[in-house]
């Protein structure tokens, strides 16, 4: 089997409940290598939970997650090993507040990949340079703007050279004027061919960047397709209703 045929990510019948509430009601989703898939839907539709299930930060109740042909949900699989290939960026950045920017980025390469200090710092600095953050290397996260923190979080994930990036509403906690700098970084990653699964409320961004858009409601993927079709002529009436509310709110 060659790489083009093996999906970067395949979810089969993924279910997840929190107590009585079933948040994911059987999700099937495949992401091809170099594909950018955007998950849209109202808050509470299960987008974030879905992303957290992909790298087993939330354990599944049922279903399978297959990363590059390897089932991460199988018994006895070392989840730490598979997580290295998956980068995840959270809405709230989740940088380590007691470490400098540079240490935030080099921690996992050094402790998980066993890189030496010089090599890990070199890798971190070249990434920081690329995203215009090299003068921030010695700062603590609290001293950075939200946009800078989020870019550092992206760099931290990239330092592990992931094959797949999961982005969980990465601009939702940012002031409006800081959103663009983060979206530009993601756009750059997409142009380079990074495989990404993105939960977002930024519909304009999703339309620009996505190869495919999935509309989630109440824990199910109700509709999926290329952005041109989803955003202009959605078939499912619920997708239409969701998008019309978004348009009414002036967000598309």
């Amino acid at each position, binding site marked *: 089997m060659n790489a083009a045929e093996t999906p970067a990510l395949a979810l089969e019948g993924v279910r997840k409940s929190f107590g009585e509430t079933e948040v994911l009601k059987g999700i099937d989703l495949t992401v091809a290598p170099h594909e950018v898939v955007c998950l849209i839907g109202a808050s509470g539709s299960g987008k974030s939970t879905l992303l957290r299930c992909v790298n087993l*930060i939330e354990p599944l109740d049922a279903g399978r997650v297959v990363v590059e042909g390897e089932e991460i949900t199988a018994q006895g699989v070392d989840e*730490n090993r598979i997580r290295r290939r998956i980068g995840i960026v959270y809405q709230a950045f989740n940088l380590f507040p007691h470490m400098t920017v540079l240490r935030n980025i080099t921690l996992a390469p050094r402790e998980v990949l066993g890189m030496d200090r010089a090599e890990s710092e070199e890798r971190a600095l070249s990434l920081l340079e690329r995203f215009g953050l090299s003068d921030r290397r010695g700062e603590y996260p609290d001293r950075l703007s939200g946009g800078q923190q989020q870019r550092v979080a992206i760099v*931290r994930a990239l330092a592990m050279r992931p094959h797949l990036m999961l982005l969980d509403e990465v601009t939702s906690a940012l002031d409006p004027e800081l959103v663009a700098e983060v979206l530009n970084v993601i756009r750059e990653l997409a142009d380079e061919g990074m495989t990404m699964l993105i939960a977002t409320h930024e519909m304009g961004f999703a339309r620009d960047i996505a190869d495919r858009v999935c509309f989630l409601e109440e824990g199910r993927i109700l509709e999926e397709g290329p952005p041109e079709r989803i955003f202009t002529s959605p078939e499912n009436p619920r997708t239409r209703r969701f998008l019309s509310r978004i348009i009414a709110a002036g967000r598309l």
Partner: protein
Amino acid sequence: MLGGRAVLVSSASTVLFFTVIVVIVALAPGSGLVAERFFSPFHLWRSLVGSESEPSVLSAFLLNVYIFAISEVLILILALVIAVVRQIPGPVFFPFRMVAVAYTDLFRGVPLILILYIIGFGVPGLGLAFFSYLSDITYGIIALVLVYSAYVAEVYRAGIESVHESQNAAARSLGLSRWQSLRFVILPQAVRRVIPPLLNDFIGLQKDTALVSVLGSIEAARAAQIYGASQFNYASYVVAAALFILITIPLARFTDRLIARDKRRREAGALA
């Protein structure tokens, strides 16, 4: 902000308060006796430095400092182990968690002085090789470590639980193992947050070193008692008290400073 009137009122109130106390003490029928029995300069000095017949309170106090220093290091380590064991998830570790919980329940629940008696008189009675032939001071240190570790483990646990779960999620997402996440991400933040309550417990520990005397060691409180019994003068107690205060006050002020610094830092963080 303190205005002119507020300064005036607070000064007047302070002066009045201390005047009343001084007057009450001076008018008390036994005030002359108190001055002689507790504050006689001769006895203050003699009990501090010691004599042929009585031990020096100052040199006895060095034993308190010694016990404190050794116990503190051991407590910091043992308590951390207990706190970490207590939060390891998974059914396999259930017995370990149970032991950690039982440990804290037991040693927080029993008065220190009883633990001192049980260890200090019980263990030698068992006739074990090595363990039954340690010095009184060593048994005292063991008892202090056992009891204080239970308290300090709870302080650590509060710190660990105060670190938001998203920090662990971020670390695990990067491929760090549970242990690596704990070591590099959770514990450094947790320990930083609990430094003020930790120091608070150590002030308590510093004072409780005096209880080791029940096993026979002559530390400051015991030396003061010996002096008082032989000279019928209690200046030695005042001296011992002053020595304890000399150590605990700097610790207390240091704790205050750390709390203030932590507050400033959090407020700066909230602004960003």
